[in-house]
């Protein structure tokens, strides 16, 4: 039983980390990267979502 629980935990670390990396990656690109094209495209949403914009 203990082994089973442990193996479940180990196998779930990677998917959780992967989801977190993907989530934070999306927030960084959509909300924070200052490249002009991205900034202009996301401008209104960045302001409305409270990200530091300019």
């Amino acid at each position, binding site marked *: 039983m203990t082994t089973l629980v442990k193996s479940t935990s180990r*196998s779930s670390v990677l998917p*959780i980390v992967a989801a977190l990396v*993907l*989530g934070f*990656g999306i*927030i960084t690109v959509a909300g924070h990267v200052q490249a002009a094209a991205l900034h202009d495209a996301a401008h209104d*949403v960045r302001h*409305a979502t*409270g990200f530091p914009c*300019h």
Partner: protein
Amino acid sequence: MFQKILTSALFAGFCAGLLAAVLQFVFVQPVLLHAELYEGGDLVHFGADPVTAHPELPGFDAMRDGLSVLFSALIYVGYALILVAAMAMAAERDIQIDARKGLLWGIAGFVTFHFAPAFSMPPEVPGVAAADVGLRQIWWWSTVAATGIGLMLLAFGSNWVAWGAGFALILAPHIWGAPHPDTLIGPVPPEIAALFASRALGVGLIVWAILGALAGYFWQSENQEEAIA
């Protein structure tokens, strides 16, 4: 498991993002467009004559507003991935999530990503005076991290040390202080900036609460399907 997280997050994040876009168009965009008239110099605050508070605003712009819908959905899918990953972490510790509990998780997400940064650095209307964007971004991320960990300690800590540390972490970024501009040269009237900040936060709260409930619901049903299978 990654597929379960991804499925729940995509459904919940996309629905929440669309709702955010609709609420933004109705409640935030008119204020933003009004501010841009001052940012661009079409209207001048404290000029010689009083300025009408109800100028004609630009209407619907398919390209600009279409991109807003896209990025709104994208950002809330990003938030949903983080939220559902946290739910998966909780499930590992036998904490079960459903739509009702998800609502609370969503509100915690709002506090972490919107309200805590806004406490010292309110949502900026276009044209507002602000410190260097890089410094503000570092402060924004640090505040999000400190608040997220702090809330986790408050919610799941089991003794006063954990609760005290959580409380201290939540306060720390504000005692440290957010980067503010050296001079106040923003051309936008305070009435517009204040309405913008409260509207942005209000929309954030509604959308995060719904995002949390949806994420909890989809996460629970993904897990139930597996249990039945």
